[in-house]
């Protein structure tokens, strides 16, 4: 039995969990945009504060959220090093041998890190942490359904996502089974040269592909048997209704953007 959590969905019933997925997608986009509006140290402070507020509203343990940042730690570190050592400015902080560090460099590095962190946390709070992959797919399909006019395959894309989400755990399990079966026949995946190891994968990949195609074939027939004929004329069981909370959040987000712009204008602080 394998246990895979796709994405980082954290089950809960907070305000953020309950928002309409369509609104959440819009909110996430707006939030990212807002993070790029920050031009002064005070607006950055406001942005950081907003991230904290979002985590509090979501009722997700902060440690869980911070753990989600781990994969991008390296990128952040790289950004910091690049900015700190390579940015030229006016206020020289350290001047040692070939190392010249300017205040501007440090500030740029800080703002970059903060921005990346907030973008990750923000999109996480609206999307990955509080929305199941299926709800997200659903949100994408319904939000972008007007684009069908331009012959964009919105429904097909959403259906592909759904099926992928459904079959990823199955195929992972299947890979494990095939690996076990070949190990039982003496397969060795962990020793030998790179070439040998690549060759050792054939006994896994061939059956896996054969099985994936067989499954795809059977699924296609099963879908046809259930009268699937694409998005045309299809209804849905659940109808998404925007609630007052959705509109309030949207208004709050727009207000937040406006506040950031005002801060830039009237409290420039260290302008960046």
């Amino acid at each position, binding site marked *: 039995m394998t246990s895979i959590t796709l994405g980082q969905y954290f089950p809960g019933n907070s305000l953020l969990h309950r928002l309409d997925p369509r609104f959440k997608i819009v909110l996430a986009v707006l939030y990212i945009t807002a993070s790029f509006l920050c031009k002064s140290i005070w607006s950055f402070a406001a942005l950081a504060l907003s991230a904290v507020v979002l985590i509090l509203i979501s009722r997700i343990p902060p440690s869980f959220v911070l753990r989600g940042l781990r994969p991008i730690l390296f990128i952040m570190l790289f950004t910091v090093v690049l900015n700190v050592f390579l940015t030229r400015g006016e206020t020289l902080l350290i001047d040692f041998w070939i190392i010249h560090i300017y205040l501007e460099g440090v500030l740029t590095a800080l703002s970059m890190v903060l921005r990346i962190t907030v973008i990750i946390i923000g999109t996480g709070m609206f999307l990955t942490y509080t929305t199941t992959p299926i709800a997200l797919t659903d949100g994408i399909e319904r939000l972008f359904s007007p684009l069908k006019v331009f012959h964009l395959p919105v429904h097909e894309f959403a259906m592909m996502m759904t099926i992928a989400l459904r079959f990823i755990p199955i195929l992972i399990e299947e890979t494990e089974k*095939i690996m076990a079966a070949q*190990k*039982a*026949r*003496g397969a060795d995946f962990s020793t030998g040269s790179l070439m040998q190891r690549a060759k050792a994968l054939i006994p896994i990949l061939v059956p896996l592909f054969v099985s994936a195609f067989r499954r795809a074939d059977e699924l296609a027939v099963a879908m046809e048997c259930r009268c699937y004929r694409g998005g045309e004329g299809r209804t849905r069981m659940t109808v998404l209704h925007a609630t007052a909370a959705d509109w309030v959040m949207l208004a709050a987000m727009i207000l937040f953007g406006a506040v950031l712009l005002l801060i830039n204008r009237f409290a420039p602080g260290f302008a960046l």
Partner: protein
Amino acid sequence: MNTLQLEHISYLYSAGTPYEMRALDDVSLTIRGGTVTGLIGHTGSGKSTLVQLLNGLNRPTAGRVLIDGEDIWEKPKEIARLRYRVGLVMQYPEYQLFEETVRADIAYGPKNMGLSTEEIEARVLEAAEFAGISRDMLDQSPFDLSGGQKRRAAIAGIMAMRPEVLVLDEPAAGLDPQGREEILGGIRAYREKSGSTVIIVSHSMEDMARYCDELIVMANAKLLMQGSCEEIFSHPEELAAVGLDVPQITRVAELLRQRGLPLPESIYTVEQAAAALRQLMGGVGR
């Protein structure tokens, strides 16, 4: 010879995560060498985990697996060698075929063992015969065979390693009566020729009754019962309670006993039932 022992085996999946699950809980049992042992249990009873412990695919969280008194995990680096001694045919083994010809696929295991070309060829032919794979099938692509033939080719792939212990997880699942017969007959032939120990996992109580000397019943990660078919199938209520069954013929015998027919309690094949009834009613027929 080829005796397997489990000593206080426990096995946890995803230990230390929120998904932790105890698949086996303090299981101790002995499988005597040279016997055909059936392993039955509901889905999730731990039997598939158990078979993967026997050939070292899973390492027990606690407890020891012994083959002829030797702990298989004594030298973890040599666990691959153990897998040649304890051959495991997993569920739906036809889904692991990958070579261009049936011959090459059967040879995959022996090749990994590092045997000589002649030896490999000899073993392929021998295994193909046990599994009922004809000569001309050997040069076909495994993907062109019928379902039952694919299954037999996959089983031959394990038999070609000449394991002393042959473990099969649901070898006959989904096949028609003749297909089941061919597979189970082939396994019996392999055992008779090689004297190896055979362990079969199956949901079919009828097949178990016909082919096994001894049965192990697993339920909820624990060993529920172990004994001869006679002993196990005389506990229909316990079996039903864990989602299992007795052969249909055993139920007939039970009904007849309830109505006063003096039938022995050890009936689990049609032949036994017919013999017992002939004895009772023998003189009366036409």
